[in-house]
């Protein structure tokens, strides 16, 4: 590739700058509003220079068990992620390797789980979980989120498994390894980028989900996004606390993505065959 000219560089950096502003402005507003004293919250033009305060964060954890809600969110999101990636990978491996003329239909059937509008099943889920006594428990949310996450994982992982040469598995089979050992030590490590991508998608979906969390949980299993919205009442909207809560909610997602990032590399199978 040629070295970009100065004009190209200017253009690229200008576009990058605009994108950065578009994406970072909401974050800036969240952070700045979360540390802005309430009296100047709605001042116009917005106060750019003020003495920051941590009152909203103190209130957030003092007035509600926000730590518990965060913990709920983590349990639900990690639980659903682990569950979905584990079962989704196994299913994807089967779909990728078993040669059968109806296998595509199975794959499509799994994908079709994601086609219904979530709102349509809220009430049935509510009745089911109420009947079996799982209402307002993290398990209910883990199940619900996994029904959305597993199809996604299956389709993502199938693509990654398809790219792992079967010759490697045959080599391992002749070398004396059984199916589980081959899957665990040869195939899965080579599909690690797929695992990372799947985990990130599952985690973010489960972490951010609002509708089911609102309908299926009460005080016990409430997740952080729902808890934040409870600062929005008919009497008043407590913007400071909402923003403080939003910022706290942002952190685990970012940490999780950064953790997975080192696995998001391509070309793992290079040099294996030929």
């Amino acid at each position, binding site marked *: 590739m040629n070295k970009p000219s100065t004009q190209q560089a200017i253009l690229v950096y200008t576009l990058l700058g605009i994108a950065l502003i578009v994406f970072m402005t909401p974050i800036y507003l969240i952070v700045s509003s979360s540390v802005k004293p309430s009296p100047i919250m709605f001042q116009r033009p917005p106060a750019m220079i003020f003495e920051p305060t941590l009152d909203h964060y103190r209130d957030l954890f003092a007035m509600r068990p926000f730590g518990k809600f965060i913990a709920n969110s983590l349990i639900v999101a990690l639980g659903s992620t682990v569950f979905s990636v584990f079962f989704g990978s196994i299913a994807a491996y089967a779909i990728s390797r078993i040669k059968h003329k109806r296998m595509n239909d199975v794959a499509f059937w799994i994908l079709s789980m994601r086609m219904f509008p979530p709102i349509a099943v809220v009430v049935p889920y509510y009745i089911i979980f109420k009947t079996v006594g799982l209402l307002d428990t993290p398990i209910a949310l883990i199940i619900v989120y996994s029904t959305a996450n597993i199809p996604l994982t299956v389709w993502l992982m199938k693509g990654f498994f398809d790219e792992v040469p079967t010759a*490697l598995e045959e080599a*391992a089979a002749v070398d004396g390894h059984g199916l589980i050992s081959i899957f665990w030590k040869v195939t899965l490590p080579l599909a690690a980028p797929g695992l990372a991508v799947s985990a990130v998608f599952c985690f973010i979906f489960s972490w951010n989900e609002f509708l089911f969390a609102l309908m299926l949980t009460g005080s016990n299993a409430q997740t952080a996004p729902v808890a934040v919205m409870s600062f929005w009442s008919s009497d008043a909207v407590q913007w400071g606390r909402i923003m403080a809560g939003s910022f706290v909610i942002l952190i685990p997602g970012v940490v999780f993505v950064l953790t997975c990032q080192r696995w998001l590399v391509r070309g793992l199978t290079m040099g294996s065959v030929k």
Partner: protein
Amino acid sequence: MSAITLRNVIKRYGAVEVVHGIDLDVEEGEFVVLLGPSGCGKTTTLRMVAGLEDVSDGDLSIGGARVNEVAPKDRGVAMVFQNYALYPHMTVRQNMEFSLKPLSLPADEVARRVDEVASTLGLAELLSRRPAQLSGGQRQRVAMGRAMVRTPDVFLFDEPLSNLDAKLRTQVRLEIAKLHNRLGTTVLYVTHDQVEAMTLADKIVIMRDGHIEQVGTPEQVYSQPNNTFVATFIGSPPMNMIPARVRQGRLEADGLLLSVPDRFKGVLAEDQAVTIGIRPNGLSLAKDVDHNTAPARVEVTEYLGNEALLDLRAGPHELIAEVPALGRPAPGAEVTVHFDPDALHLFDTASGDSLSL
């Protein structure tokens, strides 16, 4: 006891049969090469022995035990794949160790075996590298090393040299030959390259369209081909084939008249359609005309150094002759070709089978 035995082994994919009832015995310590054009079923046969393909019908035994339903891991074989199939996420050492894991050996024994094989194959310096950091030849040696550390009963090679350049191929071929001499392990080796087959094999199995055409030593398949397929497949350039008829004790072929060598006299019938086969080195240039010669014109000469190949036209027949390069005729020259009666092969034209006894 044979190391590998195939009895009427059949392979079908759905309704399509690709291997039609093969019988084969591979003796203990023997180097057997499956040779044939692509699509002849040789790799499928090898993969059945490895357990990577199911045997549709017939019996497959390794070391005397029937293994049709035995998983690959329990067959005591090691395989070198055409594309090497190295685990890209493991170093060379880990690649070799991985094939020892199922044996549950003590760690120092594992290390000892890996080091020993690595030094044999000249891989000692490369043990901490990954496959992506190796050249084609080095990867090939790692693939062999991975098979060797297990000290299997049977080595299976699936066209192991086809991804190497010509020079490296010769070199690795020699290494494989030396290795077999030293280890004495039974080898089943698939290739479409007749030079590999001729140089390595104790026994060559020539296959076509899912059938075995001939089993024999390299000398046998070269000098006593069973049929026209084997005759033209082995040898480079291939054997000249001339359609002819038996007339009054002589072979008549469109302007070409040759006497029948004595050894064929009993088996030929008058007016029988036969195919005369003669290798390029069975033809020579003669000064005098006799009952084993024919007039021909030189169309092209190919200089090979010590020898030259002459593309000849004798009436309607195109022949290739291998003659000393020194004093070779120029293109366009009219010459007399001598057919060495001892080098003559005769095949029944209808069946293609050899008429030699």
